[in-house]
């Protein structure tokens, strides 16, 4: 399942493969599972759970804007930078993939609009979406692949929730990488007392599993954050509290309905020189254990 999730084609707004995997594998494990208008998958245990767990289903990607003369030009979304893309393989829904080229000298000045995919095919059209080809692999200590950071939350949540009997809801959010659209739409019509997001992050200064005290937009609930810190301490889980300059969409949660107590669990990913992202199994296990314990204790 981990490999399937890591390899799934799921650029923002095109999360069908992940959605199908989730609906099929979780159908008999939750009281209710459904897909909403924006493509979010919502799984619920209990009649009206007060705790919401959230993770994203989508990956950053590219959208084709022109295909002519053997060159496929594109825009990027979800935080992909030109330097992340040069020399990498981009794969499309139909399985066609090609290398991203840049005719200038590689530097921080390279712009996405100067990059193209060397592909001479009529099977790629304007409006098609692509993602970095995952090239997933693993060894005893880690998982490795392109775009793995965006799947870290999903990998954590999926594994944490399978054997739990407590009442809680899970929002597998669509379009998270393009502004938390799925989260915002879902929260505009659903109320919870507290929520925990789980997501990957890249941060040179902070390793391992973190409990978010503040993300780039707002502060987390002190009560909920401290509850998670206590759980981590009691369970001897190696988790640090951190202030991260990444957007976990805290303000969308905090101001939803009548207000939601919110924090997030961050799973660090390490960017390798070739652009692949590495997630250590030990850290993923810590995040799973922390989330599992949190769901049990917060009920």
């Amino acid at each position, binding site marked *: 399942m981990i490999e399937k999730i890591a390899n799934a084609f799921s650029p923002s707004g095109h999360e069908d493969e992940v959605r199908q995997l989730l609906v099929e594998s979780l159908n008999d494990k939750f009281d209710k599972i459904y897909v909403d208008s924006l493509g979010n998958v919502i799984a619920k245990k209990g009649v009206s759970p007060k705790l919401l767990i959230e993770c994203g289903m989508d990956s950053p990607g590219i*959208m084709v804007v022109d295909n002519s003369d053997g060159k496929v030009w594109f825009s*990027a979304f979800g935080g992909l930078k030109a330097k992340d893309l040069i020399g990498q393989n981009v794969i499309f829904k139909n399985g066609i993939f090609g290398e991203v080229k840049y005719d200038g000298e590689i530097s921080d000045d390279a712009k996405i*609009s100067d990059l193209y995919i060397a592909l001479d095919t009529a099977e790629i059209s304007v409006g098609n979406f692509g993602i970095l080809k995952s090239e997933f692999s693993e060894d005893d200590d880690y998982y490795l692949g392109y775009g793995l950071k965006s799947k870290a939350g999903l990998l954590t949540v999926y594994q944490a929730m399978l054997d739990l009997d407590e009442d809680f809801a899970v929002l597998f959010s669509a379009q998270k990488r*393009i*502004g938390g659209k799925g989260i915002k*739409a879902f929260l*505009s019509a659903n109320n919870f007392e507290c929520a925990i997001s789980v997501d990957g992050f890249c941060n040179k200064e902070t390793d391992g599993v973190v409990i978010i005290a503040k993300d780039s937009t707002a502060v987390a609930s002190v009560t909920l954050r401290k509850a998670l810190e206590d759980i981590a301490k009691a369970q001897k889980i190696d988790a640090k509290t951190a202030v991260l300059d990444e957007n976990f969409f805290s303000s969308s949660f905090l101001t939803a309905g009548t207000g939601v107590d919110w924090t997030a669990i961050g799973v660090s990913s390490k960017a390798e020189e070739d652009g692949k992202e590495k997630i250590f199994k030990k850290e993923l296990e810590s995040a799973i254990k922390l989330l599992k314990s949190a769901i049990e204790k917060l009920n």
Partner: protein
Amino acid sequence: MLRKLTNAFGVSGCETEVRDIIIEEIKDCGADFRIDNMGNLVAFKKAKKENAKTVLLSAHMDEVGFIVTDITEDGYIKFETVGGIDARILISKRVKVNGRCGVIGLKPVHLASKEERKKMPKANELFVDIGAKDRTDAESVASKGDYFGFDSEYIEFGEMIKAKALDDRLGCAIMIEILKKEWDVNLVCTFNVQEEVGLRGAKIAAKGARPDFALVIEGTTCNDLPTVPKNLRVTKSGDGAAISVLDSASKADRDICDMLIKAAEKRNISWQYKASTAGGNDAGAISLLEGGIKTASISVPCRYIHSPVSVMHKSDFESCKELVEGFLEDCGKELTEND
């Protein structure tokens, strides 16, 4: 209709004149309408049949413009822009301030230093000359906080139309035409305020409509210009209505996009994709309402958008209108077939 709408004044927050024109046009078309506290005009027209789907159409009434920030001792108006205007296009443009003509002025080239000639002035470094002899004279025309807009007449030339505020009076004009016809879907048409200053009106206007689908009708960027390479051209004038896939405000619903493409191909209506992820419109606000609403955007390519001389191809406007109508027809038919 488009002439009347584009000549009207309607800078974000001051849409009354535009709204009044629309009300005059739709008051006898069999639609109910209301104006909410923000100033949005929301029209409802019931389907010809029972158990029909509900489709929300959305266009915004407001246009980019200016607000008076100060009046100088010698009677010039200082201003800031309302909505996204490129300061480079402002110099020497005509504006209308509370009905009085004015021009956006700048120190003459003879008196500009070398540095000043190289530098592009910011909006707050410019001023409007309304021909006032001093502050008192100017204050008889305008006060701090007054809004004003470009002064530009609707003109047809060749197959093109030049006007200010094509974005998005063209959408308003299409919705007016649609409201005058009968449909097999329940129609909710929201004529929104304040799109240009943060998609504000749509958040309120579309609330409670709970449509099956929402379609935003817009004017969009068209940069098919000599200096722009093909891979950077967002839309091409004359190539038809532009269907958005992804922009900075929303990801278009794929079902609606598929329906639009099907509707276009069935009726031989010209269409193109909007080939860019930049920009955004009221779809960004509507799609996130009430648990999520399936929303997409269809646009008419407008060259020199957000300027007093935006230019569109007449055939693109027709394609857009026909495609929205085809979409509504198909939405109505689909239910009949599935009944």
